């Protein structure tokens, strides 16, 4: 490996006695380096550079200085006869790459004994996703991101190394600039409808992100103790650099979203029932979403608008209902830095118009990051991220009133514009089917209101004092304060809200997380030049609070006036009280923690690390003991330092083991009663149907990991491979009991989940010339998930369902979770389908049909640069997962699916046998047959969710400096970007395999009646002004 070299230009002369040596340490760009360790070789005398990169030390001409700085090659500098030195340190490229690890502690990448992946901000900020988490899709081995089809700013389901536990909400802890931030999902749709209200990570402006570091294994995240089980993602926001002067950068991004039609419905038969066209308006209205009419013949037939239209395939199909969405994002950032301080301030505005009419998102973010050396060796840092987020009309999803996406199920001859304007002459809803709970899409889009807004301040202030060149103390306070409002209106004239002028709901919640921590760090040779100890100890106090109120105003008195004062009946209460189920229970939690981490480095090739954290929770019964200790050990062995292998630049073997625990929810270990609504003045009380959790401790997760990192041929080819084996124990299951037991749910400490997997990241630069380079990278994840234990009886743990209600997902013992449980065809011993006496297919009980979580996934990214051009594209893939599709159900039930063409006019005689074994001969009218089939054989709706997609393409051009010349610009970069451009492979007819109406693990892989997927095309322009 590259031995430290003396920079030429330093003359080494015969020895001269001098009293004081002064110097400055800079990086390759000439920027001063602060806090660089300077030591006189062969002594313990040392100092470090100040804020200007300057140091002074006593010595003579024979003195040799050892100059070391994290991330840079250590250098030995003979002083010679110079009294003033300028020492340039070289960042030793990848080999001494510095990574941010837990608690924000920076470490040399090579010394880390566990897997982590850093994603740079420039991969996230060009083709912008409204939720930055989506941009991580396909980029990190082990990380699986699933979106929600709910419009801009929808939530992400983020799974690191598989489905960690049997909990329905799981995902990593996000830590921004060292401070944990709230990523609570703000409400999801269920089988009965609802909307996706977004999550916490969606608030972050991608333009502000410097890096995101994914700490995958438990050893990596163990320092976060009980919050580490889902992994940790560290976000570092951009900051100013000292002595950088004043800089201005402006980034403008415009993106268009175009609906991406996945349907391939039949186009031969039109609206109607049992082969009959609607004869009058009433018939048209009662068959508004049924394509069981006769063959399209071009005749004139009444539609739901009361007018006659040609009975032929319309070009005004559902896709015309949706608009071209657009998102315009503008970010200005100012940076500055002098000798003692630096700052960055950015202002950003994102304005989105969704594809769903009358819907959109506006997000304004203000980000400040400032640091200042106050006195010698004391630096303070202030970070503030203020977010104003306004969502207009979050789209209704799944099955419930107010969902405009039912427009997707019109018969082939039905023009979507016949549903417009969605109102009758008196302003009330014009229903278009015989089901009043299926709201007219226009009425849903233009009359329903589902607005939410959020004000959020994520702030932290920290102070770091260097006690000696090798030790520091740091204190930090972080505060994440979120205020959410939600306003929902079921408008006057809504068909299913009878006898009143509608209802409205207002909800306000406050979420805060306060963290105060202190960290002492020291790094010192225990045995000089042989054994080094790098150690930190610290403590943290966390206080979390969540509370709010909601008010429903029901039965509005005056029409069209949507205010609380207008409710004939008002209901109010705390979030989660029995009369309102709008959100979770209030929560209040304090956790006191202490932790340590210690790295023992033998020379620089063997590093043994250990960490431990002790968490003491307010929410755990005292009787169960004081708290939890979560230890980790890891080792990093850089074998390439010991032996030389041809072509191998770097080789590391790493091993780790950790045990962590899950958090304990507040308020669950006591029996509570609540005062119920009085009945004609008589007071009443009730209590939860959930039995309290008085005796149980949170579960533990143990993980063993082994991995290697290899770099060949001057870093032209590199591998990072990890194998992990993780298992949970004593997961608290909220088991289902029957009402007859007095409670519907009780906690039992029984479940266990195993995830074993392999992560591979391959990166390389096969071609690198002066003007052209090609850098592909490929990642691959294989996960073998298995539910080892469920409840004490080994029963399935139910998760979610979709509106047809004829299938569910569940954790099933000994199978990968979550499984789709559906009714399949009942077959005889020879495999013939059995039909009942009415000619309809019989079904099995619900049986496991496969997991909704992929077994293999990953991405393949390619970056090409040619002179000032660059081209990048990302392909990602998923294999081995199933999807439960309500769209498929409805398409069969409503006669849209091509399979319903068979026997359309003749009736269907199902191919199979009767119970007695005779050939089935009963002819069933097509509509009856397929509707019964769709209802009964839910296995038909279980589809293969595998896909390969061209996820992102970006093409950029930087205008050469020679052209910019005397212009005010230092650089201008123009990029054309596209997201979700091409589904290269899929197996799901009529739907996008990624479709999902809710982000919770309980609804993973379940789709239906949500916002259609989009292709995104955009233009990004970045201007950096001259200083």
């Amino acid at each position, binding site marked *: 490996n590259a031995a430290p070299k003396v920079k030429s230009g330093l003359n080494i002369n015969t020895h001269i006695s001098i009293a004081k040596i002064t110097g400055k340490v800079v990086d390759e760009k000439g920027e001063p380096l602060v806090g660089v360790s300077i030591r006189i070789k062969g002594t313990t005398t040392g100092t470090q550079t100040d804020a200007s990169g300057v140091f002074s030390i006593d010595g003579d001409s024979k003195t040799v200085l050892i100059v070391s700085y994290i991330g840079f090659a250590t250098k030995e500098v003979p002083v010679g006869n110079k009294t003033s030195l300028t020492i340039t340190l070289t960042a030793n490229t990848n080999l001494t790459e510095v990574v941010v690890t837990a608690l924000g502690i920076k470490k040399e990448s090579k010394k880390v004994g566990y897997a982590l992946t850093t994603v740079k901000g420039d991969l996230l900020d060009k083709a912008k996703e409204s939720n930055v988490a989506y941009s991580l899709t396909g980029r990190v081995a082990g990380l699986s991101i699933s979106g929600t089809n709910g419009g801009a700013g929808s939530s992400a389901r983020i799974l690191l190394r598989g489905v960690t536990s049997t909990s329905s909400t799981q995902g990593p802890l996000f830590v921004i600039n060292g401070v944990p931030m709230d990523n609570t999902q703000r409400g999801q749709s269920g089988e009965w409808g609802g909307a996706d209200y977004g999550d916490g990570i969606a608030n972050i402006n991608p333009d502000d992100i410097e890096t995101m570091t994914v700490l995958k294994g438990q050893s990596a995240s163990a320092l976060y103790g009980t919050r580490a089980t889902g992994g940790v993602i560290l976000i570092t926001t951009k900051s100013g650099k000292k002595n950088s002067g004043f800089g201005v950068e402006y980034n403008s991004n415009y993106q268009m979203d175009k609906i991406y039609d996945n349907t391939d419905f039949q186009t031969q038969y039109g609206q109607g*029932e049992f082969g009959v066209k609607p004869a009058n308006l*009433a018939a048209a209205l009662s068959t508004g979403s049924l394509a069981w009419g006769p063959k399209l013949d071009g005749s004139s037939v009444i539609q739901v608008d009361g007018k006659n239209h040609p009975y032929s395939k319309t070009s005004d199909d559902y896709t015309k209902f949706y608009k071209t969405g657009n998102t315009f994002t503008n970010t200005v950032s100012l940076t500055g830095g002098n000798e003692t301080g630096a700052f960055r301030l950015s202002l950003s505005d994102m304005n989105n118009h969704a594809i769903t009419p009358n819907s959109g998102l506006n997000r304004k973010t203000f980000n400040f990051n400032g640091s200042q050396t106050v006195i010698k060796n004391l630096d303070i840092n202030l970070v503030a991220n203020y977010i104003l987020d306004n969502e207009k009309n979050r789209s209704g999803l799944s099955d419930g009133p107010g969902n405009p996406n039912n427009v997707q199920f019109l018969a082939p001859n039905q023009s979507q514009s016949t549903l417009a304007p969605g109102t*009758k*002459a008196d302003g009330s809803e014009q229903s278009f089917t015989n089901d*009043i709970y299926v709201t007219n899409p226009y009425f849903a889009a233009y009359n329903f209101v589902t607005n939410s807004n959020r004000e959020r301040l994520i702030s932290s202030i920290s102070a770091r004092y260097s006690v000696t060149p090798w030790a520091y103390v740091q204190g930090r306070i972080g505060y994440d304060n979120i205020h959410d409002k939600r306003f929902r209106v079921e408008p006057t004239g809504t*068909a*299913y809200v*009878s*006898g009143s002028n509608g209802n409205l709901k207002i909800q306000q919640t406050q979420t805060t997380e306060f963290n105060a921590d202190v960290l002492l760090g020291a790094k010192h040779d225990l045995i000089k030049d042989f054994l080094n100890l790098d150690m930190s100890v610290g403590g943290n*106090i966390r206080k979390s609070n969540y509370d709010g109120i909601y008010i429903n105003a029901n039965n509005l008195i005056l029409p069209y006036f949507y205010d609380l004062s207008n409710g004939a*009946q008002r*209901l109010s*209460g*705390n979030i*989660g*009280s029995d*009369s309102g189920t709008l959100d979770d*229970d*209030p929560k*209040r939690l*304090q956790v006191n923690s202490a932790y340590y981490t210690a790295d023992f480095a033998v020379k620089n090739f063997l590093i043994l690390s250990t960490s431990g954290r002790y968490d003491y929770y*307010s929410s755990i019964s005292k009787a169960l003991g004081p708290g939890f200790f979560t230890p980790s050990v890891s080792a990093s062995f850089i074998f390439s330092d010991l032996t030389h292998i041809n072509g191998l630049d770097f080789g590391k073997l790493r091993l780790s083991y950790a045990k962590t625990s899950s958090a304990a929810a*507040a*308020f669950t270990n*006591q029996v*509570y*009663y*609540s*005062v*119920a*609504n009085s*009945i*004609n003045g*008589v*007071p*009443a*009380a*009730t*209590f939860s*149907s959930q*039995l309290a959790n008085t005796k149980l401790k949170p579960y533990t997760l143990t993980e063993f990991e082994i991995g290697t990192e290899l770099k060949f041929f001057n870093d032209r080819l590199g591998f990072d491979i990890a194998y992990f084996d993780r298992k949970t124990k004593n997961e608290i299951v909220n*088991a*289902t*009991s*029957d*009402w*007859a*037991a*007095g*409670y519907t749910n*009780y906690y039992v400490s029984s479940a266990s989940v195993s995830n074993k997997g392999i992560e591979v990241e391959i990166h390389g630069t096969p071609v690198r010339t002066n003007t052209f380079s090609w850098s592909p990278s490929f990642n691959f994840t294989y996960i073998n998930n298995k539910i080892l234990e469920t409840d004490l*009886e080994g*029963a*399935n743990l139910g998760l979610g369902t979709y509106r047809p*209600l004829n299938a569910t997902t569940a954790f099933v013992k000994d199978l990968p979770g979550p499984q789709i449980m559906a009714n399949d065809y009942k077959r005889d011993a020879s495999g013939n389908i059995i039909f009942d006496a*009415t000619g*309809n297919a019989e079904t099995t009980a619900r049986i496991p049909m496969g997991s909704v979580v992929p077994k293999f996934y990953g991405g393949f990214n390619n970056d090409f640069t040619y002179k000032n051009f660059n081209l990048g594209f990302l392909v990602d893939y998923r294999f081995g997962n199933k999807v439960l599709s309500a769209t498929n159900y409805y398409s069969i039930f409503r006669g849209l699916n091509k399979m319903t063409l068979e026997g359309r006019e003749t009736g269907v005689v199902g191919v199979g046998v009767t119970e007695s074994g005779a050939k089935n001969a009963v002819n069933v009218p097509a509509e*009856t047959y397929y509707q*019964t089939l769709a*209802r009964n054989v839910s296995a038909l709706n279980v589809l293969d969710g595998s896909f390969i997609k061209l996820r992102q393409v970006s093409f950029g051009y930087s205008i050469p400096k020679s052209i910019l010349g005397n212009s005010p610009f230092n650089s201008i970069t123009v990029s054309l970007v596209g997201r979700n451009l091409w589904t290269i492979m899929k197996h799901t007819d009529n739907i996008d395999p990624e479709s999902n109406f809710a982000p919770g693990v309980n609804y993973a892989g379940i789709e239906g009646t949500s916002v259609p997927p989009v292709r995104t095309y955009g233009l990004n322009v970045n201007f950096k002004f001259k200083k």
Partner: protein
Amino acid sequence: CTKNFEQINTDPTKVAPTLISAPFLMAQAQIKFSNSGYDQLLFQSMWSQSLASTYDYYGNGDKYIYAGSGRDYFSRTWNTSYGSSTLIDEMKNVIKGNAAFSNLDNCGTILRMMILQRITDAYGDIPFSQEGQAKDGIVAPVFDTQQSIYTSMLSQLEAATAALDVSKAGPSSDLFYSGDVSKWKKLGYSLMLRAAMRLTKVDPATAQKYAEKAYAGGAMSSIEDNAKVKADNTNGNGNSDAAALLVTDDFREVRWSKTLIDYMKLTADPRISAIAEISTGTGKKANETQVVGVNTASLQVGMPNGYDLKGGATDIANAPGYPGTSPANPAVTGDADAPVGKYSRPQFAVYDDRNRYNFLMTYGESELLFAEAATRGWSTGTAATHYANALTADLQTLAQFGTTSVPAASIATFVAAHPLIAGTALQQINMEYFVHTSATFNFNETWANWRRSGYPVLTKVNYPNQFATTIPRRIPYPLGLPSTNAANYAAAVARLSGGDTFIAKVWWDK
């Protein structure tokens, strides 16, 4: 800094065990149990042919076909009832051993028996002896046989009723009787009578024994003793039947059944104008407009069960005696014909009142049961007297809705015109039970008494794809049981002849 942890971990919005007032739980159990809404409308109300409907999700009750969320409805009566009994169980836990609450405890037992009887009558063998004990670790209770349940129920009712002490305080949060212990005592004996009379087919000896005990003990003696609960819409406990019927589809297409209206017309029952009406205007719009209709007795027509609006053989237009559509009103834009507009609906002002009373057990029912016991020759007084009392009470009871009534003169005339006749006594008594429990919207009772007595004599509806080959006599167990309580569920199903179906009979329904 951990000394506040206990306080931090206390939910500020909930009541700690030390603060709870146990009697409050009883009121919650009463409102929850009485307010059954769709629980009884979807199945029981139409199996008993009290109501009829052409609308889709009523297919479960009207036509014995799965409609709407079909199988999911099996659990409704079960869940609501056990959800109510658990409140009583917990109340009894809280006051256990506290002599000051002995009346509350015994009232709790009486209410609990009332609740559990509804469950066992609907499903058969059910968790009884181990009901509501998840707190003590029993999350999968055994299913007791209905026979043992009835044995226990009768003796528990006997003990609890006898132990009520009228000189001591009654329940303080009591929606039945505002804490009047003497009324609770009468309820206890009337419930004992009702439970006893369920056994007439299967165990007449026990039935006689307890019917006579009830008579001796002192059952309900006036309509003031009726066990009923008034809903309170303003405070979030609106009447669930009303909420259901006010849904546009339900309002437009739920009608009194032909079986009921025909019988009432046959007997010139003056209650017809107190419970039935047709819409005032014509056309679909009028049929959906939620206002008081026309209650003239001669205009009332019951809808036959088993019809729909689908234009086929079972379209209501093809029903015998179809009164024709209620034609569209040309003055109303976009109006259409109302195909069921001429059939009688439950009166809007009465049954769609969100503050309406729910009746659980009435003096009239009690008297009818005594009348039947006496007819059977048991020592429970004079059948004819009980019957006349019942008729008077039943007609007067409607006034307790507060939104309708039968004129006193009509009551006297009707009672005088319908004396109990020995040869037709059982029929008269049980047909009155049918009319009365229908008129009070207590369809669980209508259906149970039909299964027991055979009255009214009902004709099964025929329709494609039915889930039952006879009129359903049982509700299958909730679909979740095989996963939540597999072994006990399987054992209970094994005891059912014909399996876990709608047509298997519960023990007393021999």
